[in-house]
């Protein structure tokens, strides 16, 4: 009964921090013969790619017999919380995964060490640059991915609808989704999360902007914003299951697709490897746009902790995990997220594989990328405000105009 929840935990950690004399001075003392162990905390291998990560670790340890890599894998949903707690207590791993949206805050707070002497020519330049700040490299991109439209061919055939193409618009998607939806049989036409991550992209697809150019106020409270919010929220309960029916719970959408009960699914390429032969016949296409195309691109990177005692060894591992051939081959062989390599020939075998047949769509989508708005320390608060507002529109408790107005006021207050 008398549980003192996570509060006490947080405070206990604080005490630990206070006693350990915050941020012990880092010393780079890994001479080539000394045996060192470095820790790597990640989420990118969680949910099916743990073995593939292990393959890369083993190859690295073989090439560097004096370095042992100790891996900790966490689910994506818990990763940020765990990392933040570790950073507060000074117990973070030597190397850890970083998302593009969080880098700014980590650099500003001195959590990651600048990396010198990295061979930048091995990386896709646009990705490498997105992890730079003031001319310094703060993390190395390990992979990139984007979001595409998955579709179940059998359901399209049954509803006598042509398959999605790269020239599809929202109107085409809605028409097809309506024809496929058969709520009596539990079959739905469409699935797209009603959340921040879909909203900023839908906003770009209909020609709107999230932030004003100076970054000091929001711009989504516009006719385009309302259209984007209505496009996402309006699917729920018509061509898409509602939250009460399970939407939004983990793995709900992918399971529905695997069970052959979902016509179209907006999701990242990281789920592709889990589909294989269920449903039987499926493919992908670039996501439909409204007035223009826009796809979400995500990238992950690995940073070295500013308080690591073995920075040289840690950077060696970070480089290996982001630019080695073994890493690239393993990722492509497994259909994991794509390596951020500058060498397009490495990616060729990926295109040659089947299932999904239209792998070209993954690269075509990158021609029109919408990046998430980044505002620094209040990033998560902003994400929650938008997702909450969309939830109100989805449940029809608020109009899109009112909900976005409220969200705009709250986020503008954060930007001051």
């Amino acid at each position: 009964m008398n549980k003192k929840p996570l509060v006490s935990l947080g405070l206990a950690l604080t005490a630990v921090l206070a006693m350990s004399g915050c941020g012990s001075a880092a010393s780079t003392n890994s001479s080539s013969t000394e045996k060192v162990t470095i820790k790597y905390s990640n989420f990118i291998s969680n949910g099916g790619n743990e073995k593939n990560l292990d393959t890369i670790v083993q190859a690295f340890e073989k090439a560097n017999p004096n370095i042992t890599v100790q891996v900790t894998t966490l689910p994506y949903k818990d990763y940020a919380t765990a990392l933040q707690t570790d950073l507060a207590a000074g117990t973070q791993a030597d190397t850890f995964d970083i998302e593009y949206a969080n880098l700014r805050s980590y650099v500003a707070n001195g959590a990651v060490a600048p990396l010198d002497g990295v061979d930048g020519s091995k990386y896709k330049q646009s990705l490498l640059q997105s992890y730079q700040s003031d001319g310094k490299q703060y993390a190395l991109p390990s992979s990139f991915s984007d979001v595409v439209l998955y579709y179940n061919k059998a359901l399209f055939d049954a509803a006598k609808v042509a398959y999605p193409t790269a020239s599809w618009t929202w109107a085409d998607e809605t028409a097809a989704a309506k024809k496929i939806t058969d709520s009596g049989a539990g079959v739905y036409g469409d699935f797209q999360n009603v959340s921040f991550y879909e909203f900023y992209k839908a906003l770009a697809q209909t020609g709107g902007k999230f932030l004003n150019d100076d970054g000091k106020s929001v711009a989504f409270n516009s006719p385009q914003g309302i259209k984007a919010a209505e496009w996402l929220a309006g699917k729920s309960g018509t061509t898409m299951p509602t939250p009460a029916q399970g939407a939004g719970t983990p793995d709900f959408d992918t399971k529905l697709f695997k069970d052959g009960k979902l016509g179209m699914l907006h999701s990242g390429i990281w789920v592709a490897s889990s589909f294989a032969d269920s449903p039987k016949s499926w493919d992908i296409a670039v996501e439909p746009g409204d007035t223009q195309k826009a796809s979400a691109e995500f990238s992950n990177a690995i940073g070295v902790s500013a308080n690591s005692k073995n920075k040289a060894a840690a950077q060696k591992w970070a480089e290996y995990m982001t630019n080695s051939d073994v890493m690239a081959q393993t990722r492509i062989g497994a259909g994991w997220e794509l390596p951020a390599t500058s060498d397009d020939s490495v990616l060729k075998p990926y295109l040659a594989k089947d299932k999904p047949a239209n792998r070209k769509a993954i690269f075509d989508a990158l021609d029109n990328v919408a990046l998430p708005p980044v505002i620094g320390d209040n990033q998560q608060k902003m994400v929650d405000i938008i997702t909450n507002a969309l939830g109100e529109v989805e449940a029809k408790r608020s109009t899109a105009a009112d909900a976005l107005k409220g969200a705009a006021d709250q986020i503008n207050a954060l930007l001051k």
Partner: protein
Amino acid sequence: MTALQDSRSGNPGPTATMKRYRGPGIQRKATGPRLKYGLTVAAFLIPSALPLLFFTIIPMFSAFWISLNQWNLVGPMKWVGLGNYGKLIGDPGTQGAFLHTVYYIVGYLPLVYIGGLAIALALNSRIKGRSMMRGLYFLPVVTSWIVVALVWRWLLNPSTGIVNWLLGLIGVTGPGWWTDPAWSMPSIIVASAWKDLGFVMVILLAGLQAIPEDLYEAATVDGAGRWRRLFSITLPMLSPSTFFVIVLSLINGFQVFDQVYAMTGGGPNNSSQVVVQQIYDLTFRYGRAGEASALSWLLFLFILVITLIQVRGQKKWVHYA
């Protein structure tokens, strides 16, 4: 709970007991036995005092220190004095969290007390299989909140849950439960009361069994009926147990978190956001550890004041035999 029991009037508390055991030392010089006695007491206290010091008292005061700073857990702290407290008091989100917490307690406390009392009264009579029944009612108390919360989320599912299905059978359209801001808190209250029924039952049952049988016999001879006996004997005699249940439920009620986190996460649209969930979100989602620490202290002071009022007020209605 010892502190609470000590304060009751006329009871020889531990202080009195200690005096009696202060050894043979009538003269002041007899430090030997006193020292020995002190060390003995210390030896017994240390195993529980050390964890209390390291995991409660030190963190509490370091939280106070943090509460005077702006801190995102990662970067350096920035001194803001009492700024965090001022910010919180004026913040609609924090006010909402306190209001929702009070809403929770107002709904939960009567439900769990009356329910627990009814079961305790039923299981205090000589019915068949009552030991087994007592065990069954206690089972939810020792079950993990995560499990209970998921089960209730499923029972109260607006479209596929069994509760709305049963309501449909009698022609009632069930509410949206945890998907509807107006019903998210009632959903949490129902699940919480169900889980804690067994705990309240056990405390009250112990109280019931301590009531001497001859009181009832005398009252029956005087012609008191069932209800008369309940209101004039059982409830007054049960008041110390009731007091204990209410103090404990209030303290726990203000710290409600697990069920909220697992059932609604504070949603939809913050309609079930409670104080501890707010502390959690501020620290681990929004990186505002300073404000979260200040809120922890506000919650502590709030609970302290309410408990002191209760301890003072008990003289008016709690009867110790």
